[in-house]
């Protein structure tokens, strides 16, 4: 089947890109001052040269750089991401332990921002030049212009500290021993603040994009055709304007979805969300190269996966792509 072959081609390309990214990142990280051994030694509070040498030898850091690179890359080829220097745990396990939390957070925020953004954008497009439409756009602009971490901090202060409605941090209430539905509810409560905070910024983007795109689509000839048919404005908006306006949003959403992993670093930090973004920041500070590279690999892989999904969704939404029009 054509689809299958093309997807295979894409995956093949993706693998090449991933390898390049691995190599690029590997070389990049070599430029960072300090190495994991020195940091581990530093944290030990007392370290002698012997201790450092032990660590370096153990991590293979005593080898020439090309040997290290070769080892790492050939490891990756076998899907072996090595061990975290600092935690002594396989990188793969660490990432897999953290990835679900990130996906839950970013996934929720993504869906939330996309849905709300499109709704708000459509409303603003329908109320162009009216106060209510301008209000939506003004709000979107404010959300867009406000630093994410500031919103996060403020929302913790307001909703968690003063009002006490929602938990301020973490993925679930530790020690509460919830299971099943209670656990899900608990996680959902913890999810509200970080997901909303993260969603606000992206929602603002989608709102603006949807509005522009809808106004654009509303100018198209086929909308005039639809009006000439005597269709109700609501149907025209939904069936003709919105559907066409969504095409550019699909592209944007695909880009954003991949980037959200990086964008979640701030949110994860403020809300102590045990996700991959935070893990990355810690790995970087600790010079935990294997872990850092592993996370880069996975987040780049996510971007690529989202790109492929975007293309698929796009081709489903736009028959011209699927059927190979120029």
């Amino acid at each position, binding site marked *: 089947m054509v689809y299958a072959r093309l997807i295979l081609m894409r995956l093949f390309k993706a693998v090449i890109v991933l390898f390049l990214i691995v190599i690029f990142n590997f070389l990049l990280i070599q430029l960072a001052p300090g190495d994991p051994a020195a940091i581990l030694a530093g944290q030990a509070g007392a370290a002698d040269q012997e201790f450092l040498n032990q660590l370096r030898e153990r991590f293979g850091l005593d080898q020439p750089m090309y040997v290290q690179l070769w080892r790492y890359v050939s490891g990756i080829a076998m899907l072996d991401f090595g061990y975290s220097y600092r935690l002594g745990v396989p990188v793969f396990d660490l990432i897999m332990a953290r990835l679900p939390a990130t996906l839950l957070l970013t996934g929720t925020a993504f869906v939330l921002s996309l849905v709300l953004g499109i709704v708000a954008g459509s409303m603003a497009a329908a109320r162009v030049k009216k106060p209510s439409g301008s209000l939506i756009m003004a709000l979107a602009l404010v959300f867009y212009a406000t630093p994410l971490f500031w919103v996060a901090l403020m929302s913790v202060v307001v909703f968690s500290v003063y009002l006490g409605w929602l938990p301020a941090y973490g993925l679930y209430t530790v020690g509460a021993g919830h299971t099943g539905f209670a656990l899900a509810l608990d996680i959902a409560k913890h999810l509200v603040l970080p997901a909303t905070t993260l969603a606000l910024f992206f929602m603002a983007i989608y709102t603006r994009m949807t509005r522009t795109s809808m106004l654009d689509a509303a100018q198209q*000839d086929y909308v005039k055709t639809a009006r000439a048919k005597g269709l109700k404005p609501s149907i025209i908006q939904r069936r003709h304007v919105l559907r066409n306006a969504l095409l550019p949003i699909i592209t944007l959403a695909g880009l954003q979805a991949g980037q959200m992993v990086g964008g979640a670093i701030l949110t994860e930090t403020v809300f102590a969300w045990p996700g991959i973004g935070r893990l990355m920041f810690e790995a970087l500070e600790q010079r935990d190269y294997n872990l850092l590279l592993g996370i880069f690999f996975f987040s780049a892989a996510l971007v690529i996966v989202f790109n492929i999904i975007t293309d698929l969704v796009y081709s489903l939404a736009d028959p011209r792509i699927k059927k190979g*029009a120029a």
Partner: protein
Amino acid sequence: MNEASTETVLSIRDLNIALPKGADRALAVEDVSYDVKRGEIMCVVGESGSGKSMAANAVMGLLPKGVRATQGEILFEGQNLLAMTEKQHRALRGLKIGMIFQEPMTALNPLMRVGAQIAEVFEAHGQFNAKERQTRALELLIEVGIPQPEKAIRAYPFELSGGQRQRVMIAMALALEPILLIADEPTTALDVTTQAQILELIRDLQQRRGMSVMFITHDFGVVAEIASRVCVMRHGKIVELGDAKSVLQNPQDAYTQALIAAIPSNAVPPHRETSQVAPLLEIKQLNKVFRSRGGWLKPAREVRALEDVSLTLARGETVGIVGESGSGKSTLGRCVVRLEHPDSGELLLDGVNLSQLKGDALRRERHRVQMIFQDPYASLNPRTKVGMAIAQGPIANGTPKAAALKQAGELLDMVGLGASAVERFPHEFSGGQRQRIGIARALALNPELIVADEAVSALDVSIQAQVLELLEELKQRLSLSLLFITHDLRVAAQICDRIVVMQYGRIVEQGSAEQIFLAPKEAYTQDLLKAIPGREAPVAATA
């Protein structure tokens, strides 16, 4: 040609339509009154900016934002459309009044199947259930003569050709058997042969259903082909209104006369002397294939744009290349000026082979062949002063800037714009004036050959005539050689010594203009000629 009844379907009375502030005039339409009677085709004719479409849009309630009727009334079946609420008006659209538009390529929603878009008309007016709607849609597609209607109903617009899409539009407009069909330049974007078919279809349907049609066009040929009555508009006012025959054959208003006079030579070329000097341009076995690279879910495609094309052009001669879209005529022109790189074959200009030149070598030879482009708006850099636009060629070829600018002034004078135009920007000029600037630019390098690619297609008829006149005059004065590419046979007839007919990248027929027009050999040439609108209808003799 139609015996029009006396019953009035639509009556426009003293209509004024105001444009928003900042537009180039206050009223798009001023004191306009005309009727459309049952069973007639009422043609509204005018050049761009005449306001000919405005009244139609007002009838549909589809006026652009900020544009509104300020005076008068539009009576449709006794009701004033201008006094209706949007809801009442909507109930009429599609049901009692149908409309088709100029651009079939963009008038259909690209994401919906054709059948669904037709079915929407029924849905909008609450008729039939989902299944019946599909059945009706299929019947309509059959009625408008789409090939393979069962397949077409499931097709997306992009899978159909322009003519087929316009048929779908017509099917949609006619779905609920409206009393009035408004057709806004429905054939302007189509090839001649397709145009002829669509015009015929509209006429057929109109007669079969006894419907009234309000037909808006800029082309008197089309008017001659189809109209029962004609309303000629200029600057938002009616200049002449009357029976088609009398207006065409005996126009009263000076403007109408001028318009009719401007229709190129009524398709009968004057006899021309063919020169027998050595050829300036020799094209031998030229081939060009366009390969679109395959993309994501998209197979690679090949289009053979030129196949073994050979022709010659003598010094001082004008050769016309005619053909419909996709015939390869523009590719040929672009190969001659070397904007495209031919795959194989020779392009001998005065014995020098241009076809394989590259890089600097090509750049040095470029001044020998220049081009006049189609789009007067796109062919001038909006940020470059007119004088500089003309002078940049000589400057690039080593002329000092001051001298080049002086020469630019002289050229502008020659094309009738005056040397003072040097200091102005393109947006200060009208389309026709810009085309003159384009001509001046092409002349600046004293080329041996000029390729004019649809050089007058984008212009209104009256302007078209002036530009053609200018070209003719310059050609005489400077003994230019011209390769004239056009889709409009009437224009070709007016200016060309010899004509080359192309189809699907091949030369179908070539010969002197007279020979092609009066004694075409090939069936395709004959079809093309037959399709020229108004060719068989009697039109007032040129002044």
